């Protein structure tokens, strides 16, 4: 600007701190009206002139080489416009840079029943269906792999020609601190083997995408996606077009839960088809196809070993833990490498753990690919840990609440695996649900068949690192103001039902002192909005929120300068509230917000501000340290009461008490919705939901097929299944969050499943070491108990896995620097197989490689 403005700093005469007017209050969500009138435009609600339809021909066999494709009969169907096959998509894609293993259509090989092979476009959806039906694909079957064990036993043929070894996609081993010494120093060692079945998101909206060719070889894709930015990147790569010629707009999602956060085949296919045909192209997946796209919860087998010490004050402390996880990844990489690390990463942020070892393996199998579902990789080990702790409580005679309260991780500390814990409200959460449920008075004392269980959890408020390495902001917000007094806010975030639009609008409205109806949003549009990485990892409120705070504060500052100068008031004394900008000491002196903007536009010219957010750097520097860090962690605790019928094993949840450490609610009614929705989804997982598969008999192709590819067969809880839920929101503002807010989208699900397993133990004295918990499992365990056998139902053993050389990372307490002391460029895995090709034991492998176990002496050495 030309002339300098009179400088008045806020310190000169600061306005008093004011209570927020909007933040913390339950307001109607900004998209609330559209959602109850049917006006919200989901992707399948869009249509364009000359729009045609695509159907995908999907593989009917689980693993095969494509011998030939015959389009002859299909071409004759009236209305058919064109086809695409794998030849049209030579370039692979995938959400993670390390797993670029998908093709929009399979070029040579199919890897699961449902892998897309051919795309058909036609003038009507009916014709596209009919033509797709008539496409003939000839397959040469390959042996199939259906489980982690089969993948371990069957290194050849490989499902993919990349990965750590054979059909093992990823193998990880990390040792933080003196684990063996910790076990040696323990008074007692506990070991458990626990199984968590896979399940799926089941968003109510089937995925849909519409591609529209635009002038100059450009294309726009409208899609039900949680991550338009990553879809944009995948399209750029596969279509070979400059990113500037591709526009991706995420429509409001009809639920996501992680299931719409990969770039999908069908999105790429319609974009290519639109460019080929020169007309808009739409695809809407059938419900069965949604099951096949999957990316749901990994089935995980876990082994957990914990050493404990009884302290003189009666508390129990953990001396060390080793967690091993084996993930059944399905046919593609998806987020799997991150998922693998996530099964180990967050074990340390709830309870003090001086030494920790994590070993994980993810196998490729001929099933729909697994990926991130609400809680991404952490509900499975959390289930294992919290059930394990309940057993430790039973054995040590401590009340499960006291056991946990006595070992809580401390706020403002760094864990053994180098995660920085900031605010930590778990103790308050436990106290709330314990008091609310009468846990101390009632646990262990209810009549037979009734029980209470307690469990806890923690989750990220956004992954510390983006999915691809870069130094740019993870969230950007832009605000445009003009003489109308309206405030337009632009951000790449995607509204998936969680209420992110409302969070964005509320933060800007609060800071500028305007009402929600003065705010206009433009979101999730790669042409128009600054990049936000998307709605995953519970990142939006914190990251977008901080970017919005910055953009809004910059706008407020500019307006304050202009108004301050016009009214000759120190700008720092100006208050923005109730649609006005006024003097804190003399509220009658001021301007309407619109006049204030007019003054500012006149003073500075056209007005726009931006804000961006990059998370703080994590102290962990070892290979794999990128998964787990977050600016803040949320905490949750739940007590669940169940009734169990010992005659049938049938059980029912009677009541859920849940407390969630939210930091600060931006809008409590939206927070409540996420808590109740998370509890519901967790109950669904432990009560009934499972993505199970079966092999067809040999004469029917021996295919590995989905047991439940429909909403009727994939059981999920209905209105009739939900018990009452009592919710406590624990508010302790976190300095990293906007207005102190932390996440709520994923955390409250975590304690639900183990709380149920623990409650069943309290009710009938049997351990169900797996989820979901079906009545027959309870019954079998009760029968075993009656016979005097182990009163348990669950997996017997963890498979023999060669985890290779472990990464040795000294902990903060050992004086470590966040790096491993033996970082290696190429893992020494191939050398870890014995000559016969069989797996060696870990000890044997370590001996051969002469990798000594890290000891506490290291501290002295440094």
């Amino acid at each position: 600007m030309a002339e300098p403005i009179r400088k008045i700093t806020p310190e000169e005469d600061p306005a008093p701190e004011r209570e927020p007017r909007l933040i913390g209050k339950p307001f109607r969500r900004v998209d609330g009206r559209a959602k109850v009138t049917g006006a919200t435009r989901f992707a399948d609600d869009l249509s364009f002139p000359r729009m045609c339809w695509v159907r995908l021909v999907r593989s009917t066999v689980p693993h095969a080489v494509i011998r030939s494709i015959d389009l002859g009969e299909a071409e004759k169907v009236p209305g058919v416009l064109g086809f695409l096959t794998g030849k049209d998509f030579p370039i692979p894609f995938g959400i993670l840079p390390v797993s670029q293993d998908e093709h929009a259509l399979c070029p040579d090989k199919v890897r699961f029943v449902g892998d897309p092979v051919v795309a058909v476009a036609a003038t009507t959806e009916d014709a596209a269906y009919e033509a797709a039906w008539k496409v003939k694909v000839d397959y040469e079957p390959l042996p199939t792999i259906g489980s982690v064990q089969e993948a371990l036993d069957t290194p050849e043929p490989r499902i993919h020609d990349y990965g750590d070894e054979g059909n093992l996609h990823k193998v990880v081993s990390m040792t933080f601190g003196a684990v063996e010494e910790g076990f040696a120093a323990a008074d007692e060692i506990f070991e458990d083997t626990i199984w968590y079945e896979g399940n799926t998101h089941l968003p109510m909206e089937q995925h849909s995408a519409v591609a529209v060719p635009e002038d100059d070889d450009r294309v726009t894709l409208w899609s039900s996606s949680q991550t338009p930015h990553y879809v944009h990147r995948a399209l750029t790569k596969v279509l070979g077009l400059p990113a500037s010629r591709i526009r991706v707009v995420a429509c409001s999602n009809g639920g996501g839960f992680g299931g719409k956060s990969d770039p999908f085949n069908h999105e790429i296919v319609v974009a290519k088809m639109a460019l080929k045909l020169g007309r808009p192209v739409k695809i809407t997946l059938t419900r069965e196809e949604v099951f096949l796209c999957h990316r749901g919860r990994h089935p995980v087998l876990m082994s957990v070993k914990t050493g404990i010490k009884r302290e003189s004050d009666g508390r129990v402390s953990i001396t060390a833990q080793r967690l091993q996880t084996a993930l059944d990844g399905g046919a593609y990489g998806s987020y799997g490498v991150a998922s693998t690390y996530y099964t180990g990463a967050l074990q340390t942020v709830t309870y003090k753990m001086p030494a920790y070892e994590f070993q994980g393996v993810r196998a490729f199998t001929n099933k729909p690919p697994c990926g991130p579902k609400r809680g991404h990789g952490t509900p499975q080990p959390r289930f294992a840990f919290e059930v394990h702790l309940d057993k430790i409580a039973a054995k040590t005679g401590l009340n499960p609440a006291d056991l946990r309260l006595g070992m809580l991780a401390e706020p403002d500390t760094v864990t053994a695996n180098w995660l920085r814990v900031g605010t930590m409200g778990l103790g308050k959460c436990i106290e709330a649900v314990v008091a609310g449920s009468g846990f101390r008075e009632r646990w262990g004392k209810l009549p037979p068949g009734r029980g209470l269980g307690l469990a806890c959890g923690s989750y990220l408020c956004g992954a510390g690192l983006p999915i691809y390495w870069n130094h740019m902001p993870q969230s950007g917000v832009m605000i445009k103001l003009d003489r109308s007094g309206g405030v337009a806010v632009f951000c790449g975030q995607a509204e998936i039902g969680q209420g992110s639009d409302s969070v964005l609008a509320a933060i800007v409205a609060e800071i500028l002192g305007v009402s929600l109806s003065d705010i206009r949003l433009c979101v999730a549009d790669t042409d128009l909005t600054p990049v936000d990485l998307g709605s995953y990892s519970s990142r939006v409120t914190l990251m977008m929120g901080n970017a919005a705070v910055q953009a809004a504060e910059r706008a407020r500052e500019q307006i304050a300068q202009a108004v301050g100068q016009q009214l000759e008031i120190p700008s720092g004394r100006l208050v923005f509230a109730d649609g006005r900008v006024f003097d804190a000491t003399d509220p009658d002196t001021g301007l309407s917000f619109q006049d204030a903007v007019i003054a500012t536009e006149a003073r500075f010219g056209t007005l726009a501000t931006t804000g961006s957010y990059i998370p703080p750097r994590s102290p962990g520097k070892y290979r794999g340290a990128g998964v787990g860090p977050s600016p803040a962690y949320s905490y949750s605790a739940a007590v669940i009461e169940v009734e169990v019928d010992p005659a049938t094993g049938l059980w029912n949840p009677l009541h859920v008490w849940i407390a969630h450490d939210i930091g600060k609610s931006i809008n409590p009614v939206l927070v409540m919705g996420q808590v109740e929705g998370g509890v519901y989804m967790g109950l669904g997982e432990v009560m009934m939901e499972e993505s199970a598969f079966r092999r067809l008999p040999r004469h029917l192709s021996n295919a590995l097929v989905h047991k439940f590819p429909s909403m009727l067969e994939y059981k999920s809880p209905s209105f009739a299944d939900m018990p009452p839920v009592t919710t406590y929101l624990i508010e302790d503002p976190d300095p990293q969050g906007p207005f102190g807010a932390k996440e709520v989208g994923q955390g409250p699900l975590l304690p639900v499943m183990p709380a149920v397993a623990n409650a069943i133990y309290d009710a009938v004295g049997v351990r169900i070491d797996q989820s979901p918990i079906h009545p027959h499992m309870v019954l079998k365990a009760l029968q075993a108990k009656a016979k005097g056998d182990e009163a348990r139902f669950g997996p017997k053993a963890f498979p023999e896995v060669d985890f290779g050389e472990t990464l040795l990372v000294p902990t903060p307490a050992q004086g470590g620097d966040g790096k491993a002391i033996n970082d290696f460029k190429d893992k020494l895995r191939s050398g870890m197989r014995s000559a016969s090709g069989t797996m060696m034991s870990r000890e044997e492998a370590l001996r051969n490689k002469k990798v000594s176990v890290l000891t506490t002496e290291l501290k002295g050495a440094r």
Partner: protein
Amino acid sequence: MSDDLTTLRLRVNGETRAVVFPTHHTLLEVLREELALTGTKHGCELGECGACAVLVDGRPVLSCLALAAEMEGREIETVEGLQIGNELHPLQATFADLNAAQCGYCTPGILMTAKALLAENPRPSGDEIREALAGNLCRCTGYHKIVEAVDWAAARMRGEEGTPPAEVFYGSPVPDAPRV
């Protein structure tokens, strides 16, 4: 695939519309594709989820299972016909205020089913609401806010004053923790 076409007049939200469509098309398809009434949703198109529920002569019907060709002379109501002028129906208002519509995808089917319930039973109990809606799946809300919203809408429609208790919006008061 049959090429038969049907031509008929449909009564939708009190208006008469002439439509031509392939005879095998469902009411869901005709509403969404011929009449551009995309407020009615689908989650399965197999009668399993309730997202497509509309009212036919006042009764909830899964539009994905109903043939449009059989709808001549019937009164069809969809979510687009729920509001009165520019005013939200009490069900719509309470759903919006209580966050009973999160992603909002199940919402139209649930609103229409609830409307039929309240027409028959203006004072349903919680269990009666749950039973009436048991065929409608929702993956976002955990159902409680929906039951509360129907309950409060019913109260408003009966002309009763009052607002839901604070717990519905803020959660329960955090109990004092007696340490042992």
